[in-house]
């Protein structure tokens, strides 16, 4: 048998092993085009945040403030998987794709919940899964794309779930892994790597959607001779972190991808002196070449594990008497950022703390560089406490922007401080490299704290808070979605609730207890003229970590949040 034939046979055999057909294949699948991705139909959810601009806004208004009280579950689907279910259900004309931890994808009839097919990744037995999760699948033509924790990018046939191609991105044994939803731009599948806690050098990489061939790879930390390398000392850049583990946003008008980058490694800043470009930054990339057009660094010489990987929202903002092509980013570093995106630069416009912080003394008005209090900056050999905690004012769960209210809705965490003792630790490929002992990481409620999780509504035009809803006994660890029905949808609390708030007033309009806690991203979609709301419930990963860290510190804290994933779909009772 010729080598090529043998390889093809092997591929087909493995495909049979990992794709399990139920009622599939899918009939009449709607191919996904560049135009559809650029202007998605109101009833669909084909991007991580529905649209390239990352606003997390649905124009559907059939479910609204007047009838949301009649919202009831119409079907549920148990994934059979534990740990954190963080992906939005992806919708393409009546077909729903659900990604789960452990590398599974389930294709469902979005109207009935009937299963078409399921893909199960066969993960290596020796895989070290620090963040066992997945944040969704990208779509292109008749294929979909899954990034896996064993560091592969897999293309599946959308109709059958069969593997079309499978490309190794990097080596999981060296601490490289993938948890994000791929961004698809004009036939290119773009992903970024995780591993900031394992001494990697971050990158964003693009593959040909049809073949899986790598097209370009841009490292988030510049190598020797590249601009920005001078902000690193010696060989620190080789293992400096800057992982890029969340999906980027895209401006089709300027053909610019905006991608967030993570913390510098290891954590204590004196282990990697310098500003450490391009960690904790937003990068502006050319999707055709990967070339970096410009960048903005949210904070220099990161020492707090403050990833800034949640890509900024692209909003045309009316502010100071003009329209600003803005980037809006409520940061893990507790600063609510308003930036202006220009062809060759990203300009600081405004920034303010949206939760309590004692790290920053202010922001330099021209550069936008935050001014650090050195007493709150972790270093080797000393216990340093700081606010907010290393999970930040807002972690990866996304904020949303409503085109109707003009407000930004932030899943914030208030009154959490933390700290650790920096320690010199040798780097070992594939092992944790934090610069402290992991069990030495502290999370401390502020004295007198009345609440922790806080759903906030901010007016980005004025910098004023419009309203907030506080959660006395829980943090808030779930993404927010806004709809044209003036609804704000969010889970994220340890009482297992899924909630709808009035977008203008913050009034709690509806809530439903679910099987587990909700870390997943709510979505809105429409099939045959009926609007639905969907979300995955499935607690785990960092939501669980924070909760465990709070046990015994917060009286009355609910610690019994069962794990196990379920897709919940709601509609208004008729």
């Amino acid at each position, binding site marked *: 048998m010729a080598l090529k034939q043998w390889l093809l046979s092997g591929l087909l055999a493995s495909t049979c092993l990992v794709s399990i057909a139920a009622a599939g294949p899918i009939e009449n699948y709607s191919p996904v085009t560049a135009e559809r991705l650029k202007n998605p139909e109101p009833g669909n959810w084909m991007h991580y945040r529905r649209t390239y601009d990352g606003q997390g806004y649905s124009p559907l208004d059939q479910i609204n403030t007047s009838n949301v009280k009649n919202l009831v579950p119409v079907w549920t689907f148990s994934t059979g998987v*534990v740990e954190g279910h963080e992906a939005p259900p992806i919708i393409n004309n009546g077909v729903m794709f659900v990604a789960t931890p452990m590398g599974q994808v389930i294709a469902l009839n979005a109207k009935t919940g009937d299963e078409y097919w399921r893909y199960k990744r066969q993960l290596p037995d*020796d895989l070290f899964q620090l963040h066992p999760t997945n944040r969704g699948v990208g779509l292109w033509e008749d294929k979909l794309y899954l990034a896996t924790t064993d560091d592969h990018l897999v293309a599946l046939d959308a109709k059958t779930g069969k593997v079309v191609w499978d490309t190794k991105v990097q080596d999981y044994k060296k601490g490289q892994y993938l948890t994000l939803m791929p961004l698809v731009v004009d036939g290119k599948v773009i992903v970024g790597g995780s591993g900031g806690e394992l001494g990697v050098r971050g990158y964003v990489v693009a593959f040909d959607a049809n073949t899986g061939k790598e097209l370009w790879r841009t490292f988030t930390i510049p190598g020797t001779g590249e601009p920005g390398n001078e902000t690193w000392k010696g060989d620190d850049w080789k293992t400096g972190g800057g992982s890029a583990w969340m999906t980027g946003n895209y401006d089709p008008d300027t053909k610019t991808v905006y991608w967030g980058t993570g913390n510098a490694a290891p954590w204590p800043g004196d282990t990697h002196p310098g500003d450490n470009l391009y960690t904790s930054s937003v990068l502006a990339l050319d999707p055709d070449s990967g070339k970096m057009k410009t960048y903005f660094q949210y904070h220099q010489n990161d020492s707090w594990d403050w990833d800034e990987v949640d890509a900024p929202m692209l909003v045309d903002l009316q502010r100071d008497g003009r329209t600003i092509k803005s980037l809006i980013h409520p940061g893990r570093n507790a600063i609510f950022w308003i930036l202006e995106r220009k062809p060759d630069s990203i300009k600081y416009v405004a920034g303010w703390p949206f939760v309590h912080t004692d790290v920053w003394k202010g922001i330099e008005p021209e550069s936008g560089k935050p001014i650090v209090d050195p007493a709150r900056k972790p270093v080797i050999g000393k216990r340093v406490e700081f606010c907010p905690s290393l999970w930040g004012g807002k972690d990866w769960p996304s904020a949303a922007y409503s085109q109707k209210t003009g407000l930004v809705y932030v899943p914030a965490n208030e009154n959490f401080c933390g700290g650790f003792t920096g320690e010199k630790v040798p780097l070992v490929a594939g092992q*944790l490299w934090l610069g402290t002992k992991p069990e030495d990481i502290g999370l401390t409620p502020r004295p007198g704290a009345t609440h922790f999780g806080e759903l906030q509504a901010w007016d980005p035009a004025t910098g004023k808070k419009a309203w907030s809803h506080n959660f006395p006994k829980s943090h808030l660890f779930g993404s927010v979605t806004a709809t044209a029905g003036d609804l704000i949808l969010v889970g994220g609390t340890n009482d297992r609730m899924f909630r709808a708030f009035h977008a203008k007033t913050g009034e709690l309009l509806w809530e439903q207890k679910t099987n587990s806690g909700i870390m997943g991203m709510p979505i809105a979609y429409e099939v045959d003229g009926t609007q639905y709301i969907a979300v995955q419930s499935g607690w785990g990963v960092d939501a669980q970590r924070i909760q465990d860290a709070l046990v015994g510190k917060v009286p009355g804290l609910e610690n019994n949040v069962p794990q196990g994933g379920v897709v919940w779909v709601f509609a208004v009772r008729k």
Partner: protein
Amino acid sequence: MCQDPTRRALILTALATGACLASPQSSIAEEDSPGSNERPQKADVLVFAEGDHAGEVIKPQDLKTGGPPVRAWPKDPKTSVVRKGSRLNEVLVVRLDPAELDEETRSRAAGGIVAYSAICVHTGCPITAWVKAAGGDKDVFKCVCHNSEFDPRQSAQVVFGPAPRRLPALPLAADDGPLTVAATFVGKVGAQQAR
């Protein structure tokens, strides 16, 4: 902040283990040796995975009652191959008061010495801490990735956190000499994957 000396010792041990794994050609060559990927076999001896005595055979008197655990690799005494070709072969060895062990655990112990897989059965993270249990005053194994805790006195059953099952035990024997493996792992080593 005050450091628990036993906890600190285990962490340092873990880091040093890693350093061994990462080092050089001789280690790489050893990991490629026939048998280095195979799970521990009956009659294997255990060797220190790190520290000043890395590579030396572990004897019962090397372990202090009450911990901290040491990290170890199995070694084939006939071929001298250390089975560190797979991280799934790494074990934690701890000496406890025999009176604290339940019957099943005692049946797999050499005196009060017990051994368990060092890989958490939840998502495959390394178990790196020896700390007071979240729900008690005894030291237990802890996986700091997702906070699972295991009690080595009771077959390493889960006492806190999301881990779905106990750590696989590695039955031991010691007949006036070094610790030896008495049987293969009890249970599947490594993480639970998709269910």
